[in-house]
């Protein structure tokens, strides 16, 4: 049975070579050959022997091996031809093995570098670092120092927003389109995306006293339900809305 035969020890060994350069380097090292003076007849013979054992390999892989086999045979035949040049330098330059040797050296270089990387990998897998702290991962650091906020602070903040309203004489026709319920939904959806918001941000785009009051009522309702809390870094600084676990859970 051929299937069994290709599973033999030799087959396994051949399968360990990913490419022809790797196999060639292996043969050179195994025979303790000087890479700059490869006995091409010997290597070609060993290479072809190995190739014969590779019948079980996929064609795409074998293709690369066959190209190398052809290259080796080509070099071998070239070297059998008599060389007429007496100039040694020129003869060296025209060594048919030259290109192959250059490729092997280049590959060998990176194979060694890969070995070095592997040794780094081995060591660095034994080295551990701290995992990111959960608290610092989610909140900006400034919010760690926040204190609780009273109704008084809320009203002061509201006063500021009302003072900022642009023109008190705007004629409001569709003022009934804003309801407390709408504003609750709006604030909650905002809080779902942002973990924390500035108090002022709630009033972005609102230009009437009515709108401000509705939004403020909505905010009070949300606080009453315990879905968010309001915090302040220090007296008179900006108020910050933070979602509570209730909101996160409900969402």
């Amino acid at each position, binding site marked *: 049975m051929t299937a069994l035969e290709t599973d033999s020890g030799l087959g396994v060994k051949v399968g360990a070579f990913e490419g022809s350069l790797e196999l060639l380097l292996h043969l050179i090292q195994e025979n303790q050959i000087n890479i700059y003076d490869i006995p091409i007849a010997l290597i070609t013979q060993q290479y072809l022997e190995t190739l014969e054992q590779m019948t079980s390999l996929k064609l795409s892989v074998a293709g690369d091996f066959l190209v190398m086999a052809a290259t080796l045979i080509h070099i071998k035949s070239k070297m059998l031809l008599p060389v007429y040049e007496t100039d040694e330098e020129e003869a060296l330059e025209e060594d048919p093995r030259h290109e192959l040797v250059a490729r092997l*050296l280049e590959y060998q270089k990176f194979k*060694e*570098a890969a070995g*070095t990387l592997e040794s780094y*990998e081995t060591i660095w897998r*034994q*080295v551990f*670092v701290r995992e990111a*702290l959960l608290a610092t991962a989610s909140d900006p650091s400034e919010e760690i120092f926040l204190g609780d906020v009273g109704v008084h602070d809320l009203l002061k903040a509201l006063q500021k927003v009302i003072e900022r309203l642009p023109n008190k004489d705007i004629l409001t026709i569709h003022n009934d389109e804003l309801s407390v319920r709408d504003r609750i939904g709006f604030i909650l959806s905002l809080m779902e995306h942002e973990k924390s918001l500035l108090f002022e941000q709630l009033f972005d785009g609102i230009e009437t006293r009515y709108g401000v009051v509705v939004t403020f009522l909505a905010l009070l309702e949300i606080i009453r339900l315990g879905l968010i809390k309001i915090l302040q870094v220090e007296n008179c600084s900006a108020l910050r809305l933070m979602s509570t676990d209730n909101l996160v859970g409900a969402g």
Partner: protein
Amino acid sequence: MEDYEIKPIIEALLFISAEPIFIDRLKEILVGVEKKQILEKLFSLQEEYTRSNRGMQIVEVAGGYQMTTRAEMAPWIRELEKIKTASRLSQPSLETLAIIAYKQPLTRAEIEAIRGVDAAGVLKTLMERRLVKIVGRKEVAGRPLIYGTTREFLLYFGLANLTALPTLKEFSEISEREAEPERDAEQEMTMVVGV
């Protein structure tokens, strides 16, 4: 800030940080302290850790400084906690990564020319592990993609930066080196662990 205050602050910052801290970041935090002074304290701290038989070490990795456990502590750490470690890189992956690390940026065809083997699968794996990324296109016919290593690459191998990679050795030097493998392995250990 008093001079004696700087070192313990640096130590605390290194301890608490999950990522390597850049010198520039330390300079931002330590307002008014010169970069030279920070480096001085940092190296002194690093030296203290090395000298006094600690379980921790301070190493330069991926352009910053980080406090890590020492490699020798690994068996006990694994005893304490189950730690998930990614699987080791395969030989083809390591070879491909070495080529990219030294010759970046380069195209897939250029990688394949060196290894003599198709690189598509390996490149995909390396990109999934975020060790390699596409850094652009080469301005030649067909504008092929060019690849380079990532910050994760440095973190994975514990390298301070790309220049910390050992220089590529020529074949003859490698042969000589193989004669004294033990001494060399020791040197590599020293370099990587940053002792």
